[in-house]
């Protein structure tokens, strides 16, 4: 059992592109859930339309990457408007059910044989990330310190990813500390109050849904670029639940919550994953009990358990304050 491999895997994952991508998507979710109180259980749907918006434009229609980015963002805005229009006037449960259903519906549509000419069906799409990697200023090779090494490609995605996290984080910090953010937070507490004071609550919820959805789409595009393919089955509803787990872990309603949460989440998850595989490989855990192919499933189960335990015992996460959480009537 090679401990340095485990630590190296975990560190690489914790600061790598995947953590940045999830941090971005979770920042959108944080705007929905942490600040506005919208229960969006379909953030993965926004990632999907973002990723496919880019991939379809470039791979199917031979558009440029920038056009692809625009169409990905456009799709996210349209999706948010479609989801929000019927549900944002209803109780929170309706949005939850509709978003989870919409995420899954989108996945089914994109993977269907019917949509195959455009989306590639179950095979997905590849070869659309070239433009992005052509912009890579980092010379070929591998870079790293200590146990952590990245290829120049990964380093480029990682730089763009964390760069976006910083930009988006700054913008969100400015937003939530503005009067706009005050209205958003008041909606989270009790939307009747802002309504009675002359705020168009519906419009604010919609803005929040669109903005957070767009962030999900940006994350989706970056993810598509990083793995250089889009495949409908990678947009499983469980992705949204991962996002909730890391958001609650870091602290919902905190600007840095999703960032801290994502880094820690991927560190721990990869650590466990790698450790389990090593333990099975070295014979510490009998393959009868858990085989290497089941490690993925165990990992998901552990995330589920962690989410439950977090909500029950530390709903404020790492960065939140317990006192504040106790005041919420939720």
């Amino acid at each position, binding site marked *: 059992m090679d401990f340095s491999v485990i630590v190296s895997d975990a560190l690489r994952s914790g600061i790598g592109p995947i953590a940045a991508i999830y941090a971005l998507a979770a920042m959108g979710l944080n705007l929905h859930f942490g600040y506005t109180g919208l229960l969006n259980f379909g953030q993965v749907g926004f990632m999907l339309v973002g990723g496919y918006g880019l991939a379809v434009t470039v791979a199917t229609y031979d558009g440029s990457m920038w056009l692809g980015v625009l169409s990905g963002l456009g799709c996210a805005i349209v999706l948010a408007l479609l989801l929000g229009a019927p549900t944002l006037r209803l109780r929170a449960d309706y949005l939850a059910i509709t978003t989870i259903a919409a995420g899954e519906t989108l996945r089914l549509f994109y993977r269907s044989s019917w949509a195959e000419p455009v989306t590639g069906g179950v095979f997905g799409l590849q070869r659309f990330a070239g433009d992005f990697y052509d912009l890579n200023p980092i010379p070929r090779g591998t870079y790293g310190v200590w146990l952590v090494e990245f290829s120049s490609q990964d380093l480029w995605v990682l730089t763009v990813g964390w760069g976006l996290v910083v930009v988006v984080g700054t*913008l969100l910090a400015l*937003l939530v500390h503005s009067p706009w953010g005050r*209205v958003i937070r008041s909606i989270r507490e009790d939307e009747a109050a802002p309504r009675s*004071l*002359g705020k168009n*609550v519906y419009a604010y919820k919609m803005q929040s849904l669109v903005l957070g959805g767009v962030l999900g789409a940006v994350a989706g595009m970056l993810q598509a670029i990083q793995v250089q393919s889009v495949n409908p089955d990678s947009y499983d509803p469980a992705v949204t639940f991962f996002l909730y787990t890391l958001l609650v872990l870091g602290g919902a309603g905190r600007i840095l919550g999703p960032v801290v949460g994502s880094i820690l989440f991927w560190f721990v998850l990869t650590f466990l994953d790698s450790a389990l595989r090593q333990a099975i490989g070295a014979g510490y855990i009998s393959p009868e009990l858990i085989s290497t192919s089941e490690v993925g499933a165990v990992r998901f189960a552990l995330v589920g358990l962690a989410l439950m335990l977090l909500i029950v015992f530390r709903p404020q996460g790492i960065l939140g304050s317990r*006192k504040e959480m106790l005041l*919420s009537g939720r």
Partner: protein
Amino acid sequence: MDADQPPAVRASASAVSAHSASAAAGRLAGTAAEPGVRKPDPLLVLDGVTRTFGGLVAVRVDHLEVQRGAITALIGPNGAGKTTLFNIVSGFDRAGRGSWSFDGHPLTGRPAHRVARQGLVRTFQLPRTLSRLTVRENMMLAAAGQHGERLLSAVLRPLWRRQEREAGRRADELLERFRLGGVRDDYAGTLSGGQRKLLELARVLMVRPVMVLLDEPVAGVNPALSQSLLGHITELRDEGLTVCFVEHDMDVVMGISDWVAVMADGRLVAEGPPHTIGQNPAVVDAYLGRRHDEPGAPGVEPTGDQSTGDQLTGDKRAGDQPTGDEPTGDKE
């Protein structure tokens, strides 16, 4: 309806009147005490407002005018439709039929936030305090026309910094006035019930309303704080604000209102100056049930102002439960 009062009753009632004479009450002096009566200077006018809940008529008000610059109390037994009427007028509920206008502008069917922007702002029976915002943030939220509330300008602080400072100054003034200055940086969720009532009243004023609709402003508040709240309300009237409030406590109604409107079973059954209302047979009917058929029938006339008042408040305490027509946005 059946509100032609014997002159004798009106005269005897004015003798026990204990409320402070206000200019507004003076202007209403010549107004007849009958439901749906025209006022000299109406600010809010309702016509044929009807709301049914699955066949049950919750509100059917043929005509009601609220006098500008006066304190109007809206009373009636539980389930009379007072809160529903508030919800309709403030845009939190939809009326089945009817129209209403505010300061000459039609208000029918306007959504809640537009009603508030017109200058008609409401409070709630259970204060809608925003727990995880500070007291000061609760106040600042209410300021109208903030540039920083628009998504695009929100990120550019210079665009709204000055306005924010001004709103902050006004918020601090109001908080001092309502004795909440000491807790202004606390989370509103830590306030006591009475402080929440104060905060909600102060917050409404941040909007700079023309008229406020107060839903039971002193319910569940200790007597000392209740007096202070009532003091604030009369002060607001004296500064020119129009006030309409729902209340069960007859002492409160007698003490501060310039005019009283009485609802029962969704209808407006009586109107009049506070000192006459206790003797109005329609009101007695509404509260005590139809034990007498004709106004002035011998033997069933209430014995006096005091006892009526007690019975009315007693009625309220016996069965004060939410009517279920809460204005949560879970429909439509």
